[in-house]
């Protein structure tokens, strides 16, 4: 019996060995055949900390700082580490209601209980100072430094654009972006996003179980430095821009002023506008909604997205085409019967017959019907259609009907109707100059943007060429100009044809019957052309194009004031004041200025 029992030691030893073998096999599986644990261990301890670079600053043409980064703070939360906290105090510090706290907490928990997520973004410097002192009371909450755009002056909101958090589509399009990153959403911020954003850096750090940083990983071997964004230098003149916005207050419309020598935009106004600081930080969402639902559409950039009939401001172009086509001479005269004229009546009271110069000065409609008729019916061409196609290509060479495709996002091309369009409407061969007569005086199907209209005055100022209008002049340093924007575009009209038109446009201010003689500026030769555009939705739009001085022009522009009546009443004096401000840097006509500034032309429906 005893001997038998002592045999049992083998059973006991066998049990020991079996257990040991099971453990060894298990360890083989864990340590040698399954790599996932190595990954899990790294996920546990390695954190990639993003180092956000400063976004490039934006300066105006005189080196005045317009936009820069100011430190802001994102409050992060790691839900698992959050202990019991005084919600009332916490909400009080952050100035948020209790419901928001609960909602944000729920959202963070849903994302991950272990990973940090943004609890509250873009806390201002002041709020942060207060929060920092109390942060020790709230374990699980951390602060990450970010930067907010800061605008020194509340101007040029549409031109500068704004930045916001990337959406899913943007993240998909460019892997550079991650959840919570900012991206330019409009204006310069959008167009030059790649240059402005710089390059994010990464610091790989080790963290312990409480997510406390424990130093860098492998002495920073995998770290990368951040590269700050490049500074941008605009052609915008901040003082002129600010003045233009003041002139447009309580009016709907736009001003586009361009430096004819470079194509650089000096002032780019759409009205009503908004303070760019409204779309920064936490208040962005609320304000964006408010602006979005405003019946006057302050978010709409009328200067590039609004399309208007050019009306009489188109007459100089018509004249130039006629001159180039040799169907019009300086001395060509036509009879005008005033309101009784057919097929287009005249709205002005002037002598008759009259020559080209006076026709422009006094904006005679029948004269330009005759000019247009002679272009379209030119025997040089085999058909009306052929002549029309030629006419259209002239118009297009002035920049109408196309986009400039420089650095202005969302610009629209307007419309210069094609021959095919008329063929479709009236049937091929069933239309003639009379059918499309509205085009003679810039009405009808033709639609232009204020930017294109300003470019028209640039062309007349330059006698036949322009540089594509643009906003950013140089990137990195003021000398590093963008060459693509300095490519000269010629029109189809030769320089010698411009003199008579320019003389006539000078007479608009200087002449006895000039339509803008009330807005004349002593000592400066301004050339301009009024336009009063019929508008099926209400009162006429007041339009004006101008450049000055006549020799070596420094500024060319378009002004549109919607639903305000005659071009001479509002648009012309605004252009004149703009020119005075830009060329003389001071305003002498205080009564005129006061009338414009006090003018409230907005009737809210």
């Amino acid at each position, binding site marked *: *019996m005893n001997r038998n*029992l*002592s045999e*049992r*030691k083998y*059973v*006991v*030893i066998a*049990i*020991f*060995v079996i*257990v*040991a073998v*099971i*453990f*060894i096999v*298990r*360890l*083989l599986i*864990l*340590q*040698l055949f*399954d790599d*996932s*644990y*190595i990954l*899990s*261990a*790294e996920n*546990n*301890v390695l954190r990639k900390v993003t180092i956000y670079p400063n976004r490039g600053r934006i300066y105006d043409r005189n080196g005045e700082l317009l936009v820069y980064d100011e430190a802001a703070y994102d409050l992060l939360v790691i839900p*698992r580490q959050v202990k019991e906290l005084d919600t009332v105090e916490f909400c009080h510090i952050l100035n948020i209601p209790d419901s928001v706290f609960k909602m944000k907490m729920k959202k963070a928990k849903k994302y991950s*209980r*272990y990973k940090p997520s943004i609890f509250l973004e873009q806390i201002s410097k002041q709020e942060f100072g207060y929060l920092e002192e109390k942060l020790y009371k709230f374990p699980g909450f951390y602060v990450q430094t970010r930067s907010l755009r800061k605008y020194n002056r509340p101007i040029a909101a549409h031109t500068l654009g704004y930045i916001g958090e990337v959406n899913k589509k943007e993240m998909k399009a460019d892997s550079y972006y991650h959840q919570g990153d900012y991206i330019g959403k409009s204006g310069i911020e959008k167009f030059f996003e790649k240059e402005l954003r710089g390059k994010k850096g990464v610091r790989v750090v*080790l*963290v*312990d*179980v*409480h997510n406390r940083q*424990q130093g860098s990983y492998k002495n920073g071997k995998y770290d990368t430095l951040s590269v700050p964004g490049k500074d941008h230098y605009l052609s915008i003149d901040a003082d002129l821009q600010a003045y233009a916005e003041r002139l447009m207050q309580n009016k709907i419309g736009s001003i586009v002023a361009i430096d004819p020598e470079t194509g650089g935009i000096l002032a780019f106004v759409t009205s009503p506008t908004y303070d760019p600081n409204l779309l920064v930080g936490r208040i962005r969402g609320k304000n964006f909604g408010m602006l979005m639902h405003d019946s006057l559409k302050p978010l709409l950039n009328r200067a590039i997205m609004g399309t208007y009939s050019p009306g009489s401001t188109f007459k100089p172009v018509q004249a130039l085409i006629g001159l180039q086509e040799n169907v019009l001479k300086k001395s060509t005269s036509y009879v005008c019967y005033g309101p009784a004229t057919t097929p287009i009546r005249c709205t002005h009271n002037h002598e008759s017959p009259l020559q080209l110069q006076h026709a422009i000065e006094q904006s005679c409609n029948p004269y330009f019907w005759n000019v247009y008729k002679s272009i379209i019916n030119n025997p040089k061409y085999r058909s009306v259609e052929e002549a029309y196609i030629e006419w259209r290509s002239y118009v297009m060479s002035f920049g109408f009907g196309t986009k400039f495709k420089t650095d202005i996002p969302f610009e629209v091309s307007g419309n210069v109707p094609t021959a095919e369009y008329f063929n479709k409407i009236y049937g091929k061969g069933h239309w003639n100059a009379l059918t499309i007569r509205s085009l003679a005086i810039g009405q009808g199907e033709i639609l232009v943007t204020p930017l294109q209209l300003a470019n028209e005055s640039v062309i007349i100022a330059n006698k036949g060429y322009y540089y594509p209008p643009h906003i950013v002049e140089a990137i990195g340093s003021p000398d590093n100009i963008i060459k693509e924007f300095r490519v000269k575009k010629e029109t189809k009209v030769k320089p010698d044809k411009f003199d008579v038109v320019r003389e006539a446009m000078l007479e608009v201010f200087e002449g006895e019957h000039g339509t803008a003689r009330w807005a004349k500026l002593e000592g400066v030769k301004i050339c301009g052309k009024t336009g009063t555009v019929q508008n099926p939705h209400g009162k006429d739009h007041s339009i004006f194009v101008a450049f000055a001085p006549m020799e070596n022009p420094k500024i060319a522009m378009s002004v549109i004031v919607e639903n305000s009546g005659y071009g001479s009443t509002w648009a012309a004096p605004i252009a004149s004041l703009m020119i005075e401000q830009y060329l003389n840097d001071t305003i002498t006509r205080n009564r005129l200025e006061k009338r414009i500034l006090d003018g409230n032309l907005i009737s809210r429906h």
Partner: protein
Amino acid sequence: MRGQKHILQNIDWITVILYLIIVLVGWVSIYAAVYNEEHSSILDMTQNYGKQLMWIGTSIVLALVILMIDAKFFSTFSYLIYFLTIMLLIGVLLFGKEIAGSKSWFQVGSFSLQPAELAKFATALALAKYLSGIDKDFSRFKTKIVAAFIIVFPALLILLQHDTGSALVYTSFILVLYREGLSGNLLVLGLIVAILFVVTLLINKFIVIGTIAAIFILVYFLNKTIKKRVFLLIGAFILTSMYVLSVDYVFENVLEQHQKKRINVLLGIETDIRGAGYNVHQSKIAIGSGGFSGKGFLKGTQTKFDFVPEQSTDFIFCTIGEEWGFVGSFILIVLFLALLIRLIFLAERQRSKFSRIYGYGVASVLFFHFTINLGMTIGLFPVIGIPLPYISYGGSSLWGFTILLFIFIKQDSERLELL
């Protein structure tokens, strides 16, 4: 009688050296587990490794004292020691300090003592003493009952302290009883009970019963002799079915919430790597990420940055697995296996029945701790908080295991005199 000078010649140096190596491995692991740059002195008494160094020192003193005491002392005073330990276990229930839900500690100054750790060797002594009695025939029912009582009584007291893990250790004495004549069927039965428990939790219990019925029918038709005992077969089937049906009840009503969760996590019924499964999940990551040769001494990120809770006590094996990899883990398992087999070898060479039984007791207790602790860290057993002998941090456990082992080494060194 031989003189004191012979003690060191007669003791089994293989066991002693294995003991010393394992204790050293333990200390190094504790050092790595709690290491940080601020406290790098190994004698820093505010850190676990500093304290453990003191526990190791005192343990060696204890071992030497035991080696100097007459071997007959322990067999003579077995019952007294057992009695005193029982008193301590009752005492701790009355005056003890509650730590982490278990009322199993006496607080003395800044150090605390856990009587349950000492109760193991006392029980082993009492069991050995009782079964080695000349008139004790293990085939007699009364002997079995008394032996069971000696084992179960301290286990119940420990259970009352809410220290389920330490109480479960006493099931390891079944190996001792087996060696002394307990039917081997009981071991098999125990295994079947355990397997049925797990299977029932995993699968629908009626499918389990159906399968058992099928097996019984199969046995009935294949085995000619059993046909005559059809009632026995039916009785066994009814008993098994009742057991299966009661598993749910036991699981739901007897086990505590955290115990249920741990079992569910182990069986994969629940995955809760944030809560109940967190320890084991992180422990597996630590060990798994060690790879073949480990991350190197003090380079374990899981342990260094505190991802594994209890890493210097119950989850100490993580540190070894992470920093020394498969190689280190393998060596540690081999060391333990060598110690256990050596103990069985020593036990079998005893002329005294008392010494043999006690030796088996030592091996069984160590084996149980080793199995449950390692099994827990590598995700093979539910989380049961018992230490890895000689490795885990803790004075009471190191003292307890040292005393347990060295009483046997002393017995062994005088095996020729003891009958």
